[in-house]
């Protein structure tokens, strides 16, 4: 289907064209207007505050004699000097003692006979560390991601400097407060078309049990259990901060094709944590019934979505019709879309591609997209996996027959004669585009006619998708 939108030309319209487009602008719902109003009001208040602050700053003037005017005079408290002196002494003493201990420690360890040990062996340290990562998204916006490791047991031996070891130990603490609001059972859901807003596409894949020690257990529909840890992370985008939980381990987050490990939290939907861009997968609070989507419902959903997409597209005409027919006799029907009822109207066939849950074009053995039939219909002999059609047109009688194979569709045979144009004795007969005798032609024709053909292609209109419910 061609999807070129001629209406794209209307972008960047001048004033007169713009006026015409404004007249036809759809009405904006009150809900949407309220949302815009709230956002505007918030931004307005921020701007106003900034403006007032700037005005206030501008009121501070410098006189001609370089005397500062309007500056507040401040006095340090008396105790401040004593306190800062004492703090300085403690700090200097700490640095000196610490350095001495470290130098002595190194002297004892480094001997010609003893191997060099790592400065830090963090195998038993439970530490909280903070890592800042600055990355760039597709719009060029810088994203600052802050990872806070909660109760992380470091099993590996890290060879690093003593200074870093001191830092880690200093920050070591166990803080699982962030997980408290999320403790409990959640259901992991995915949408087979990456759109969780369409409920019919949601599949409940498994149960996630989040515990107060920031660990989780995932049990899938088949009873397989996996565990992992959860970290808290804050993602800063512009002025807003997003809280997200990072699920570690090779569990539900990586068992599907959705490899996002971070589940985002928003105040608007406190009982949902969305992975990735928010429409492909999520966990929802509570233990829902698992429903691994069967192949049966999978193709129905995929075909239905595909037909709806065509129906909403610019190429849709009321002449289009569709049908279901198990052309290859594999138990899953193929989707047929018929272009019309006129002579040259063809039928495109599509099949359900299970790994992706999508609708795929039917191809021949060369990988080319194929269309079949005449007058918008084809003939199917599903017992033998055959597609064909026959017709008489402008004095020619012809038949064509294809077979489904592992490599795609392969042409089996075609017959043609011109008995409608010339007397019988002058007629030409062809099988597979080669001239043959009448008997050979009739034999091939009998083979075609012996099949148990049924017509398919134009059973349903695009307004009636009930067969896919």
């Amino acid at each position, binding site marked *: 289907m061609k999807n*070129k*939108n*001629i*209406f*794209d*030309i*209307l*972008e*960047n*319209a*001048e004033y*007169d*064209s*713009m006026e*015409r*487009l*404004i007249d*036809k*602008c*759809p*009405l*904006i719902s009150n809900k*949407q*207007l309220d*949302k*815009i*109003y709230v*956002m*505007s*009001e918030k*931004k*307005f208040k921020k*701007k*106003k505050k900034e*403006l007032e602050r700037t005005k206030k700053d501008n009121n501070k003037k410098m006189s001609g004699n370089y005397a500062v005017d309007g500056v507040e005079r401040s006095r340090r408290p008396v105790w401040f000097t004593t306190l800062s002196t004492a703090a300085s002494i403690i700090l200097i003493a700490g640095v000196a003692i610490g350095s001495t201990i470290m130098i002595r420690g190194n002297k004892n360890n480094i001997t010609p006979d003893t191997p060099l040990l790592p400065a830090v062996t963090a195998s038993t340290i439970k530490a909280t560390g903070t890592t800042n990562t600055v990355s*760039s998204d597709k*719009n*060029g916006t810088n994203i600052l991601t802050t990872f806070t490791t909660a109760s992380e047991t470091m099993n590996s031996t890290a060879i690093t400097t003593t200074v870093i070891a001191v830092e880690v130990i200093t920050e070591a603490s166990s803080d699982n407060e962030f997980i408290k609001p999320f403790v409990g059972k959640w259901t992991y859901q995915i949408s087979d078309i990456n759109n969780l807003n369409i409920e019919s596409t949601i599949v409940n894949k498994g149960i996630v049990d989040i515990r107060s020690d920031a660990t989780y257990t995932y049990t899938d529909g088949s009873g397989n259990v996996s565990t992992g840890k959860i970290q808290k992370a804050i993602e800063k985008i512009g002025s807003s901060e997003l809280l997200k939980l990072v699920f570690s381990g090779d569990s539900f987050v990586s068992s599907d094709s959705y490899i996002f490990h971070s589940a985002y939290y928003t105040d608007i939907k406190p009982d949902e944590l969305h992975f990735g861009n928010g429409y492909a997968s999520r966990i929802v609070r509570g233990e829902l019934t698992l429903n691994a989507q069967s192949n049966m419902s999978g193709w129905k959903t995929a075909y239905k979505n595909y037909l709806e997409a065509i*129906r*909403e597209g*610019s190429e*849709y*005409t*009321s002449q289009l019709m569709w049908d279901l027919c198990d052309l290859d006799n594999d138990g899953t029907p193929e989707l047929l879309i018929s272009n019309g009822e006129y002579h040259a109207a063809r039928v495109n066939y599509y099949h359900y591609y299970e790994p992706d849950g999508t609708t795929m074009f039917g191809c021949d053995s060369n990988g080319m997209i194929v269309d079949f039939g005449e007058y918008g219909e084809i003939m199917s002999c599903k017992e033998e996996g055959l597609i064909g059609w026959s017709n008489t047109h402008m004095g020619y009688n012809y038949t064509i027959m294809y077979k489904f194979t592992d490599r795609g569709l392969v042409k089996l045979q075609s017959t043609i004669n011109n008995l409608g144009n010339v007397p019988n004795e002058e007629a030409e007969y062809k099988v597979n585009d080669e001239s043959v005798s009448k008997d050979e032609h009739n034999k091939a024709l009998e083979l075609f006619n012996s099949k148990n053909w049924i017509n398919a292609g134009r059973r349903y209109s*695009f*307004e009636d998708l009930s067969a896919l419910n």
Partner: protein
Amino acid sequence: MTSRELAVMMKKSPVTCHKALVKEYGRYVYAIVYNKLRGCGTNEDIEECVSDVFADIFMKCEFDLSSENDIKYLIAIIAKRKAIDNFRRLTAKANYTADTDEDDMKELVSDFSVDEHVERSELRRVLLDKIDELGEPDSTILIQKFYYSRNSTEIAQSVSMTAVAVRQRCARAMDKLRAKLVEIGMTV
């Protein structure tokens, strides 16, 4: 609505004034912003930009309401400029700086083509004329479906028809439009 009228409303209640502005000009601003950001922004980007426009308008109301003119044109200008700013922000690629000398500078020409601009403007006018020739509600259905990317159900609500009827009319109207465009030599 004039600036003076707004000033009177602002004196009574700024909040009511702001709400009235959003209600009165929300669709107008949305259409202008949509026209600029349609190709590069999401619905959220468009809403964000619309709210930026209104924040600027509120600022204007707060500090400068001296004009007697209809504020519609002021709003249009603010909306257009804000949308262009947002367009640049959304389409900005990574900053790239390159050294060049005067000889190379001669070879750097603007990618703005006057011919192309005029031609595009004319095509836009012709397309809108042909759409208008289809009459109502077909013209509204086509614009809302293919320009504003509304689905049949949403359009059905605004033209008081059923979604099925909208789809049928849309398909027929599109066929008619294609025929009209082919008549004048526009390939679709």
